[in-house]
């Protein structure tokens, strides 16, 4: 098992009258009983930006919640006034000024994910289609059951949603990301197919949606978000040490 160590030394000869020397080494281990070493890392990477736009550095949904993950961040700027604002979802942790680093635990708490059901009914024919999230599913068999199976079989193809079989005639779509509000389901009216989900049937087949979980702007997922302070080039050095 790989050994990963992270240490911090804080020193000053004149901050206090007796000086300051604090050195704290540490092996990074997994959470829980009989702790073993952390064994996954994103590696040390850098991300440069040229805008003031906030971005998500680490999505909580992509990591197991409540483990002993650790995050390392460093502002590589040499300009004293340039900083990154570090946030946990919508909550500001602090500002990382030029040269500053941060190292902290991260629980990667999941948030609320939008979900809806798609109920297929009446007569579906071979060649009928359901289009959603950029994926077109065409059934070769003239039953709603087969169409449900065909949609679920394409689960890996949907970039933003995960379809699962809720029942023989019903597909449950769950958003892959809790904070993704760019691809929310658009509903024109209850009981109708929508701008988001388009069905094409030769007969009288219907595809009816029903929202199970509404999207939330602040979904409580504690994603690590970064906001640069200037629109000129700023570079953040980062790493995540994590466990599955």
């Amino acid at each position, binding site marked *: 098992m790989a050994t*990963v160590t992270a240490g911090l030394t*804080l020193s000053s000869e004149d901050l206090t009258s007796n000086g300051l020397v604090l050195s704290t080494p540490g092996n990074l281990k997994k959470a829980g009983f009989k702790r073993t070493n952390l064994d996954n890392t994103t590696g040390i990477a850098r991300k440069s930006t040229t805008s003031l736009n906030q971005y998500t550095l680490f999505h909580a949904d992509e990591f197991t919640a409540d483990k002993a993950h650790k995050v390392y961040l460093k502002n590589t700027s040499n300009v004293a006034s340039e900083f990154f604002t570090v946030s946990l979802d919508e909550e500001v942790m602090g500002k990382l000024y030029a040269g*500053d680093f941060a*190292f902290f635990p991260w629980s990667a708490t999941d948030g609320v994910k939008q979900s809806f059901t798609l109920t297929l009914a009446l007569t579906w024919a071979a060649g009928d289609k359901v289009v959603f999230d950029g994926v077109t599913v065409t059934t070769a068999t003239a039953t709603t059951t087969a169409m449900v199976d065909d949609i679920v079989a394409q689960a890996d193809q949907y970039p933003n949603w995960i379809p699962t079989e809720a029942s023989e005639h019903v597909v449950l779509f769950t958003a892959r990301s809790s904070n993704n509000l760019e691809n929310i389901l658009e509903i024109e009216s209850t009981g109708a197919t929508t701008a988001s989900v388009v069905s094409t049937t030769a007969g009288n087949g219907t595809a009816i949606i029903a929202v199970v979980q509404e999207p939330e702007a602040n979904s409580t997922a504690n994603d690590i978000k970064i906001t640069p302070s200037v629109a000129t080039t700023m570079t953040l050095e980062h790493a995540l040490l994590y466990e599955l």
Partner: protein
Amino acid sequence: MPTTTATFTLNTSEFSGGGSISKSTTLRKAGTATGIDQFTGISRVYQATVAANLSVMAAGSYANAQAGKVYIKNTTPDSNTAYLLVEMASDVILGRLYPGDWMFVPNDGETDVKVSTSAANMYYEFGIFHEG
């Protein structure tokens, strides 16, 4: 002005492609080249019982828009499971510090920092570098 240096070392040499880094920075006031000049000292706490929302930093006691730093370490010995749950502001969970784990984060004086203990007989220490 005082000069306070923080040095971070990370060794991942046992990972394929891993290595070690050492990064040092001087703690300065927000947006300036002036050194941070105030420090709470390192407080060491023994918590006999499980407790929630123990204050580490009450933002109301500090000026806003500063380049403060918060250090916390779980110094509990001989335990695999006793963790400190670190929270910010209104119960926003940051993460868990297991025995031996530490953290060093920026704080602009506008966000409370709290910890909760997961077991009895835990120890932790903390210190805040700030601008007043």
